[in-house]
């Protein structure tokens, strides 16, 4: 391993679209950086802002929340509640001065293994120059 900064990313993936899309990336043997540890949740609508703040506090350099495209939610509309709730989270994090790049939301369908791959590559590339996220991280 070389010396370049490797950001630590937590990704909350909905089970039916984004986690399945990520599975498809695997089945298709697409390659992306290993910086992201996925946590599969049932629906993006179930992602509480607490999860995001908590991930940053416990040392995440970036947080991704990914759900089904609008209209495709396995739970019909959970992603639309997520869209509204997480828009507020994003505004708030930027308001207190966190780099806007550190929190990312995406729609990845079960068929979009390629999109997931690109998303992770770009996310890691964006986070690398920012260095470690120290603002919200717990200082002990």
């Amino acid at each position, binding site marked *: 391993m070389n010396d370049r900064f490797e950001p630590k990313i937590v990704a909350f993936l909905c089970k039916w679209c984004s986690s399945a899309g990520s599975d498809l990336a695997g089945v298709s043997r697409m390659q992306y950086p290993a910086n992201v540890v996925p946590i599969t949740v049932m629906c993006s609508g179930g992602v509480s*802002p*607490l999860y995001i*703040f*908590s991930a940053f*506090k416990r040392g995440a350099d970036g947080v991704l929340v990914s759900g089904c495209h*609008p209209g495709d939610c396995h739970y019909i*509309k959970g992603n*639309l*509640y997520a*869209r*509204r*709730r997480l*828009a*507020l*989270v*994003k*505004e*708030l*994090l*930027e*308001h*207190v*001065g*966190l*780099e*806007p790049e550190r929190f*990312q*939301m*995406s*729609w990845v369908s079960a068929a979009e293994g390629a999109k997931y791959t690109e*998303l992770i590559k770009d996310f890691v590339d964006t986070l690398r120059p920012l260095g470690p996220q120290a*603002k*919200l*991280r*717990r*200082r002990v």
Partner: protein
Amino acid sequence: MTASVEEIRAEVKKLLDEGAVKYVIGYRNGSAGPFAAPAFFTGAGEADELVWDPTCFHNLARFLADERREDVCAPEAEEDGKKPVGVVVKGCDSRAVAVLLQEKFVDRDAVYLIGVSCEDGGVIDEGKLARKLGTAKVEKIEFGVDGGFVVTTDEGPIKIESADILDDRCVECRAAYPVVHDVVIGEQVDRKPEEPYGSLDEIESLAPEERWEFWERELGKCIRCYACRSICPMCYCDECVADTIAFAVTADTTADEKAQKIKWVERSPDNSENFFYHLVRAMHLAGRCIDCNECERACPVDIPLRLLNKKLEKEAKELFDYDVGFDPDVPSLISSFRDEDPEDFIR
């Protein structure tokens, strides 16, 4: 012009005389200094002690939460106990009541809302007043006849322009006339601020790093006394994510549950913990905070908390066209969506 205190007293006296309410929550003179304090009026004879002046800052909706708790504790209360509680509400306070109604925390027939129109006035900002008058000892603050204030100090009365000491939230107020009420004292007004979110301009114009430095400095002061939480009419949860002490333990609570209680945030007032607490609080109040700004007033270390809450109020309006506390019958901000909600931030 402004609502007459005599009219408010007469209404309170009438309600208590008729036995139409259990008691009335209003304001009387504070025990120290010139500022009004919340007061509970139980007999018609006490009504003359009620005051109405530019220091009636307190959002009395706060006390409805306690009332509801008692209600839950004594569901078989006597007939008398089932009467509504009278509350004196300014426009902003009435919006808080509207949110409590929206969240079904308070029943509409459990409250009798004595609305008071702020007309062209509002409450003063203690800080602005102190800066304006320096060391002079203030004895009384009253509404002037032309929208300004008359402040009586030990050196006699002075007229002060509204703009000089009016609280920012009143400058940006969109509900000078109560939005829910049973009776309103004062003129009906439809006040539209020129810049409803003007106080955010400065912080929004800062570069992200400057914003970070600002909040790091401000939130770094937080001693986690939770005064902001205690005074907030919306902070009525039995259990708060911010501290484990408020964990509601009941007969059903298992040892495992107690042991497993998530420590989202440590009690130590480190910066990261303070940020977590205030971020969570801001999110918790998104679509619920009606900008009474009691948190900031109560804060012993002067953290500009309003800039957090106001930001989310602004985003709720601009992103989702959501107005907080104007209609108790609409779904809340986070329990609704529109198909056209913006998603340009989503990849």
